[in-house]
Every structure is written in C-alpha cells, then in structure tokens.
C-alpha cells in the first residue's frame, strides 16, 4: 500500500468517522442525561435520511438550495418525532430497569423500521449531491469526492457547536447538572422534565443531521439504521457512555479503522469495531473518556 493510497483512505475514513460522530454524539448525549440507551436512535437517523430523500423529490434535487433547505428542515422534523416519543414513551421508563428500557427502544426499532418500509418501500434511494459538492478534489493524484470533504468538515463544526452549547451556555450547565443530580436540579426550581425532553430532541436533531448527510453520501435503504446504531453503540462503548469527546475519538477510530483496514482485509474489516469494543471492555470497561460507575 502506497503512502498516497493510505492518506486517501485515511481522509475517506475520517469523513465516515465524522458522520458516525454526528449520530453517536446524539446517542451518548441522550444516555448521559436520560440514562437510557436509545436503540431507536439509528431508526431516527434513517427517518432523517428518507425525509431528506422525499424533500429532494419535491425540490430541484441536486441544487445547493435544496440541500441546505433539507439540512435546515429535516433535523427539526426528526427532533419533533423525538419530542412525541419522549413525552409519550421514554419519560415513563426513566425509573425502570434497563431491561424494560431495552424492550421499549427495541420495540421502537421494529415499529419505526416498518413505518419507513410502509412509507418509502424497500428500494435503495439516494439524493443527488448539490453541484458544488458533486466534483472531486485532487489528493496526491487521487480523486476524493468533494462531498466527503464537506462531511469531514461538518463533524468538527458540530463538535464545536456541542462544546459551546454544553460548556458556554446556561442550557449546557443545566444538561451537565442533570447528568449528575436531576432531583437536586428540580429542587432548585429547574423544570427537569423539560431539560430531558429538550436533550432528547437535541439527540434526535443530531440523528437527523446524520441522515441528511448520509442521503447524499451513499445509497440509503432499510438497513442503514441498524448498521449505524451498531457502529454508534461500539463508538460510545469505546469512548465512554455519555462522553461527547469520547464519541468523537471513538467515531474516528471506527470510521478510519473500517475504511483503512478494508484495503488489506476486505470484509473482515467489519470485525474491527467489535474487536476494539471488546478490547476496551476488557482493559477499561468505562470507556476511554468515561468515568467508572459511581
């Protein structure tokens, strides 16, 4: 493998890692505050991708306007679905045992995936890339799709935005306080249910952003939700459940690992996330950036 090819694969892997980060950060944020692992997070991401597809059929697909409009409208629509799910279902299980929470979110996976099947059918779809991202950039003589570079750059923007929100705003303080002592937060006069609902909606918004980006990155079909939730789960276990920084590192490890290892190992590269996950679980069960259970 030449060094040029390696760098090419690295950049490609980073852009897949960044997409994964956008999705996994939503999963880990929701877990941090609500203490529920939402397995339906992948389904929400898939809904985002299909909504982006539908919206693109209504607009002139392949234009920058239609792409930006979908980036503007679809994530809030997914957040709205999240709002309904949180208020109707999730808030009933926060105090229940993990098994019941798992049952609920797994049932949601089945239901939401079937909803997508009924509405959009099983055929693979994709959304044409906006023309300014349709070309490619030259990287050591190899053509790297401009769109992948764009996705690669969205990741850090989202990461910075999340950091600013969590560490520089009052809402962020409330979210970080709710991670530790929701009850105390309530006794101080804060409407904790609302903090939880909005955190859940933010997580779903991130899934929606991931969906919109994915719709133009590769074909979307009924399998993408399951694929990404499994990868995201590996990411948050590696990075530490509830840690955004950990999600970033974990996503990059997984994204780059799968892409780069595909060259020498082909399909066997898909074993990589689980191998890393197992290794982390053995050596540091609370994840690279996580904290041991209190």
């Amino acid at each position: 493998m030449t060094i040029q090819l390696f760098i090419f694969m690295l950049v490609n892997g980073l852009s897949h890692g960044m997409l994964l980060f956008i999705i996994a950060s939503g999963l880990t944020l929701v877990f941090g505050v609500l203490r529920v692992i939402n397995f339906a997070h992948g389904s929400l991401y898939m809904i985002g991708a299909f909504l982006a597809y539908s919206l693109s059929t209504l607009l002139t697909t392949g234009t920058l306007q239609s792409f930006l409009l979908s980036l503007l409208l679809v994530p809030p629509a997914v957040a709205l679905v999240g709002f309904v799910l949180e208020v109707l279902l999730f808030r009933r299980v926060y105090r229940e045992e993990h098994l019941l929470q798992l049952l609920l979110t797994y049932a949601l996976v089945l239901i939401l995936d079937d909803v997508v099947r009924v509405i959009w059918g099983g055929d693979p779809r994709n959304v044409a890339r906006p023309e300014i991202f349709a070309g490619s950039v030259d990287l050591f003589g190899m053509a790297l799709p401009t769109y992948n570079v764009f996705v690669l750059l969205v990741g850090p923007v989202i990461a910075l935005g999340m950091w600013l929100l969590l560490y520089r705003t009052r809402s962020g303080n409330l979210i970080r306080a709710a991670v530790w002592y929701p009850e105390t937060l309530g006794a101080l006069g804060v409407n904790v249910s609302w903090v939880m609902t909005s955190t859940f909606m933010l997580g779903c918004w991130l899934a929606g952003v991931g969906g919109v980006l994915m719709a133009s990155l590769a074909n979307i079909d009924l399998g993408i939700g399951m694929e990404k939730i499994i990868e995201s789960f590996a990411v948050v276990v590696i990075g530490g459940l509830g840690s955004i920084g950990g999600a970033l590192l974990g996503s990059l490890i997984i994204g780059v690992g799968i892409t780069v290892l595909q060259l020498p190992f082909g399909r066997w590269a898909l074993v990589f996330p689980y191998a890393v996950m197992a290794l982390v679980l053995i050596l540091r069960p609370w994840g690279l950036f996580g904290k041991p259970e209190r």
Partner: protein
Amino acid sequence: MQLEVRNINTFYGLSHILFDVSLDVDQGEVVVLLGRNGAGKTTTMRSIMGLTPPKSGRVIFKGKDVTGLAPFRVARLGMGFVPEDRRIFPDLTVHANLEVGHKGSGGKTNKWNYDRIYGFFPRLDELSNRRGGTLSGGEQQMLTIARTLIGDPDLILLDEPSEGLAPIVVKMLGGFIDTMKREGVTILLSEQNVKFALKHSDRAYIVDNGHIKYQGSVAELEKDEDIKKRYLAV
C-alpha cells in the same frame, strides 16, 4: 404560619415511613427537627419539598396547598431544599453551580445577588472558577447552602448540614444560620447534633420511628432531660 404540615403519611415503596406527621413553622423562625438516624427527618424534608410526595395529608406553604406539586414548582413558590449529601454538580464550576440555583427558581429579587453571596461566603469567591467536584466537604456545604440561598427562598429546608464537618466549620455554619435568620429567611433544620441545633433554633420537634414525639421551645427541651435521654441519646 409560613409552613403547615398536616398529618402526612409517606411511604418508600411499601414501607410506611412517616405516620401522621404534623408541624408548623412560622415566618422568620428557625425550627429544628431532631431525631436519631433513620427516624424520618430526611423523609419529612423530602415530603415537604415534594421529592417524596406523601400518600395522605397536606403540606401548606404560604397559605397554598403544595401537596403533590412537582418540586420545581414548590421551589419557584419560594421553598429551598439543601440536601444532606450536598449534591454539588461536580462538572460545573462553583459559579455555575450558583447560576443554576439563581435562575432556576427565578431569582427575580436582588436580595441575594452574587456579590452578597460571595460576601457572605468569601471562600466561595476565591474558588468561583474551581470545579464543584474538587471542593472539600466544608466548602461543598457552603456551596450547597449558597446555591439554594441565591434562588431567594422564603423558607429553607436544611437537612443535617453539620454532618461530617470539622468542629470549626460547624461553628461557621452556625454563624450562617444566625445571619440567614437575621435576613428574614425561615429555616427548618434537621439535625443529629443536638447541642449545635439547639444553640441556633427557636423551637424543636423530635421525630422517632416516623412519629412526632415532642414539640416545644428550645428552652423547654433543654430542661427536659427525660425526653432528651429517651429520643436523642444525650
């Protein structure tokens, strides 16, 4: 009466913890709830705040029935709760911990602004940029009181504030209680440290096995060796 608790019965799951507990706190008073470990002091506080709502009975605060109201609504009506285990948000700075308490309950009046709080607790001013998780026990106790105080409550429920503190810090704490009282804050204190509690309170209740066994002025209780021996092991 600022706070009237009428015959509350509180349960944790199936176990009955409080039996027909009634107590009153008048505006500006410092009232102490004494009792052994596990007697029901914390549960009484939690019931009043709505954190563990009573199954029956009434909690009336400033003339309003607050039984069964969500704790954040009770807080916004002007009741503050300082938990026994302090519960400082460890990832937030000292100042951010205060901000949560300030805006959470509205913090509309300026009676306790940041300057006054930092003047009241100079140590917190020095530590304002430190993460809450790095504070010592005494510093955490100051912060947990400050965090509730800055929300400008009319009534503070102080749950076992002296627990685990060095004698010198307990003495400081007593000073804070006296000052808060002078500022017109009503305080319902729960304590196991009888000597400390009686020094800073006007009236006392004794709770034992979830029943109120005694109520009276501090002066009366101090003379009553029999009661003290029976319920407080002093």
